[in-house]
């Protein structure tokens, strides 16, 4: 398994006395959409946090493209190309939709203290290049006409699309989406499914945490079922959902 794209092995993370991750091991393949499903409290979001530097695992390793990236801070993970969205949308509310996108590109000269004042011409040129990319992406997700709106004014589904568009400006290798379908109206959910498929066809890899089984079934090539901080079952969506252990974990028959 050394050729795996993202490899998680034996990850442990406690919150108080609760083991959110309890020796979790799984892998994500390049160019595929991997679903992470499981009942509430299975550790899905904690796993995503551990993969993106927002939670420090106590034990275990995370390796990305062959390099050990365990416990790297969030901005380093983003620089490596692991970018995420959030379960409860966290738009930057005092920024406009367009500014949300202009913010995202890495290596902005104008974000440096001296660069902002001295190299105005340089960052202004960069800004124009980024603005063109931002416009293309906003047109693609159907938010261009709202470009100068405050991002706080968007609907739940539009905010999810904004998050994806913003993440894409980082030119990620792996996009981790935390419940992209939650709180999204059905037409916009179809829009998100279409977008994920298109991006996968362009070579982007995904990890998706989701409760909406329709969405998971539509887009995921491979599914890991998590329960109590461990990987319970891995396989195709059909294999995973027909496994009696998965049904048990969701419905709690053993209890």
């Amino acid at each position, binding site marked *: 398994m050394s050729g795996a794209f993202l490899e998680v092995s034996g990850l442990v993370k406690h919150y108080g006395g609760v083991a959110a991750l309890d020796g979790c091991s799984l892998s994500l393949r390049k160019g595929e959409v991997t679903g992470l499903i499981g009942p509430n409290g299975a550790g899905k979001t904690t796993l995503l946090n551990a993969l993106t530097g*927002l939670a420090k695992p106590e034990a275990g390793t995370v390796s990305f493209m062959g390099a050990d990236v365990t416990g790297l801070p*969030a901005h380093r993970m983003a620089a490596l190309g692991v970018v995420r969205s959030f379960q409860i949308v966290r738009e930057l509310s005092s920024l406009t939709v367009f500014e949300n996108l202009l913010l995202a590109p*890495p290596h902005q000269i104008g974000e440096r*203290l001296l660069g902002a*004042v001295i190299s*105005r011409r340089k960052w202004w040129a960069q800004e124009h290049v980024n603005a063109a990319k931002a416009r293309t992406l906003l047109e693609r997700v159907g938010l261009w006409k709202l470009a100068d709106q405050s991002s706080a004014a968007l609907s739940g589904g539009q905010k999810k699309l904004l998050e994806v568009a913003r993440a894409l400006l980082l030119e990620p290798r792996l996009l981790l989406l935390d419940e992209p379908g939650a709180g999204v109206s059905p037409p916009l959910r179809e829009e998100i499914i279409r977008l994920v498929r298109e991006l996968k066809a362009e070579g982007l890899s995904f990890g998706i945490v989701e409760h909406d089984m329709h969405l998971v079934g539509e887009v995921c090539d491979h599914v890991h079922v998590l329960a109590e901080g461990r990987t319970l079952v891995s396989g195709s969506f059909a294999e995973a959902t027909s496994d009696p252990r998965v049904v048990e974990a969701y419905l709690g028959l053993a209890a």
Partner: protein
Amino acid sequence: MSAYLVTLVILVSVAALVGLALNLQWGLAGLVNFGVSGFVALGAYGVAITAPHIGWLPAMIFSALLCAAISMALALLSIRLEENYLAIVTIGFGEIVRILLLNEGWLTGGALGIADIPRPFAAITPPGGGDGVILAFAIALVALVFVLLELLVRSPFGRVLRAVRDDATVASALGKPVLALRVRAFAVGGAVMGLAGALHAFYLTYIDPSQFTPIITAYAFMAVIAGGRGSNLGLLLGAGSIMALLEATRFLKDLVPSIDGAQLSALRLGMIGIGIVLLLILRPQGLVAEPRRRATEFFPNAKGEG
């Protein structure tokens, strides 16, 4: 009367510099600084102690760098903790500065303070022309700082600070080095507060610890709230109107002879408070809104609705 006007302009200039600095730290980057008066005092004492030996310009630069360095240290110490701890640490810092100034008499003159601080351009100032020179100096200093900060606020640096203020977790998930950005914003703000203190010292030519009370901090917050968080232009208006209100109400005594000085000074603060409450109810975003980058700036022909 003209001496009074000069005093007024200098007062407004110092308040504007302090406000501009806090507007960067708190207005834009969301970093609460309750130790503003400490930084201003440090800047003032910095020039008061060094200017007689090294000249006014190097002394000002020294003060700004000193305040920037101490800001960085404070920020690094406390921003690593939960966000609100910075507020507590800065309160402590303000107190420490005040107590040090009072007690380290060998350096600061203690409660007696430091007198005969040389003013800028003192050697080439014609006799009796001191007020004009310091007036021009103050206005030039505010203009310079305003332009520099305006360049920062409207640059991607300003935008990323707003992002950090809105949601630091999202900013770091987008690859932004949140800690480094906060430290820089805090340091630049600290440097500007040092310059404000320097201007204060140059104008009065005499400083003592009683001039640097926490009311400076309160006025700075008022100016930022009134002017609109994140807007430098709003800040100038806010600082200007608060100082104007404070000073104009001095003359209430002439209009209403029945109130005495002590009552008046309490009333004045009360009126500022009522003014801010009214402003927050009627115009919660402050006098001037934060500048935003519009899509139409890049695509003049686009129809993107505003």
